[in-house]
């Protein structure tokens, strides 16, 4: 595998303390997870200036492709690994371990001037977003709402966000054809911002940053309308639209390269704080603890 092996054993027999590491740590994968990874790398290199951490953003799929060839130590993912990807890794004798780093709460938003929507149930969401061959109007969803066509904004088909929405809301059915798709969530923000009859969904961080321009829609999954907040997402009250973000680590790297192990440890220790700083939501504390134990078991 390329890039991995060289100069790994920085802490050699000369009796340097284990805290002075060197060598490379290669991280690639999801662009959703990238900000957390970037933050962690930044902080880690302040502590371990001789370790060269690099973070790429090839996307979850692209990350796994490289990971399964042994070209990276970590693959960040905004969804769990797929069966085909597992097989590809197995074919190259790559053993991996999954770790959760944070939550992302998919946020459903409407235009600031939308004064009729107070909340949406999961069924209403489903009815709205599923293609049924007819033009969708707000009045079709709940009576009393305006007789105006709904403008849909959704992340692109190939994003983890879409995947997740598809899974929990659409349940595999086709999304409305009139939906405007973009790979870039900032563009969705603009779309919803610019159209009174618009609705859209995207990552929590994008809502947080644009709170004053958008109106959040609480989601009722049977337990009353819940708005996404750090608290509701962390405790799991905001369902079904909150999803975990992952990193997958190459177990061989973990065992053979002390800096990889050290970095993983660092990740689990700091992910919560860093995730919140960049706009995601921390996992419950015990989750990190559990995973640290799993990690120690792999050493």
């Amino acid at each position, binding site marked *: 595998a390329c*890039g991995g092996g060289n100069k790994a054993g920085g802490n050699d027999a000369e009796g340097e303390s284990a805290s002075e590491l060197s060598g490379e740590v290669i991280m690639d994968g999801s662009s959703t997870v990238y900000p957390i990874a*970037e933050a962690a790398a*930044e902080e880690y290199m302040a502590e371990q200036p001789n370790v060269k951490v*690099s973070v790429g953003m090839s996307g979850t799929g692209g990350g796994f492709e490289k990971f399964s060839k042994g070209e990276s130590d970590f693959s960040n993912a905004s969804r769990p690994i797929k069966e085909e990807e597992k097989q590809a890794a197995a074919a190259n004798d790559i053993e991996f371990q999954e770790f959760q780093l944070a939550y992302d709460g998919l946020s459903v938003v409407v235009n600031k001037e939308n004064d009729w929507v107070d909340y949406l149930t999961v069924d209403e969401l489903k009815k709205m977003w599923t293609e049924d061959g007819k033009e969708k109007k707000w009045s079709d969803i709940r009576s009393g709402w305006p007789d105006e066509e709904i403008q849909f904004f959704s992340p692109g088909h190939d994003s983890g966000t879409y995947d997740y929405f598809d899974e929990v809301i659409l349940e595999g059915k086709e999304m409305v054809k009139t939906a405007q798709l973009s790979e870039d*969530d*900032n563009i969705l923000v603009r779309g919803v911002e610019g159209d009174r009859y618009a609705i859209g969904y995207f990552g929590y961080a994008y809502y947080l940053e644009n709170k004053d321009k958008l109106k959040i829609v609480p989601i009722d999954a049977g337990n009353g309308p819940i708005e996404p907040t750090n608290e509701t997402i962390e405790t799991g009250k905001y369902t079904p639209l909150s999803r975990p973000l992952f990193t997958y680590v190459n177990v061989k790297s973990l065992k053979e390269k002390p800096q990889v192990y050290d970095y993983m440890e660092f990740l689990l220790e700091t992910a919560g704080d860093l995730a919140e700083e960049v706009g995601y939501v921390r996992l419950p504390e015990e989750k990190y603890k559990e995973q640290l134990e799993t990690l120690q078991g792999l050493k």
Partner: protein
Amino acid sequence: MDKLLVSKRMKGRLVQNAILQAIFFFATVLGLIALMLLLSHVVMQAIGWLDGDFLNNFPSRRPEEAGMKSGLIGSLWLMMIVAPVSFILGVGTAIYLEEYALKNRFTAFIQTNISNLTGVPSIVFGLLGLTIFVRELGLGRSVLAAGLTMSLLVFPVIVVAAQEAIRAVPQQLREASYAMGATKWQTICRVVLPAALPGMLTGAILALSRAVGETAPLVVLGIPTFIAYLPSGVLDTFTVMPLQIYNWTGRPQEEFQHVAAAGIVVLLGFLIMMNSVAVLIRNKFQKRF
């Protein structure tokens, strides 16, 4: 010819000339207006964010601390590979096609092949580079692998420009050289190339400009975005400016849009400096025959 008719028509022709001149001028300016619009938009956004720190810092999650250093130096390294490799490859191919190749089917095939390469999307070159340079040759995600991939992507533009330039060198000059007993190679090196240099440099400018701004193939190669150290050789990992800009534009925080704008300004500054070297050489050599 009817003199009266001629002078009657003269006015119309002059008006036509003046109108079209104005249109041509306006068209030229239109491109510049677009450039200005874009630049002013970007520069306005970048104001306050573009400072010494920005050039001196590594990437950061905090917009105020985020900097371009690794990208800037990385792009410089990349160009140190792309410029010579693509120029030699492009000019060499052009010389072969114009001066040596027989006008046969194989030549026509190479010719078509080269213009075809200009239309292959950059991302496909990324796939090619990943397979060949990164994996087969084991160069990893290094400056060299990316530089070679990028060279393959941009060299066809140099070929086409250089071919046109070589073709435009008057045959009489070649004849004069041959008549002195110069060999073909000497004639090419000492007469044809200097006379064709301006056109070749135009090609180089266009090609390098593209190489500086390309994002997609580097993403496919797996060139990382976050790097907080500098490469020390062509086999080291690195990052480039467009990747960082791409990352910043996608971030949720408004501040990162400004960081991205600052990044774009730096990239354009880099581009202009790089081009002006080529432009200076081009101006020095440009002579009408």
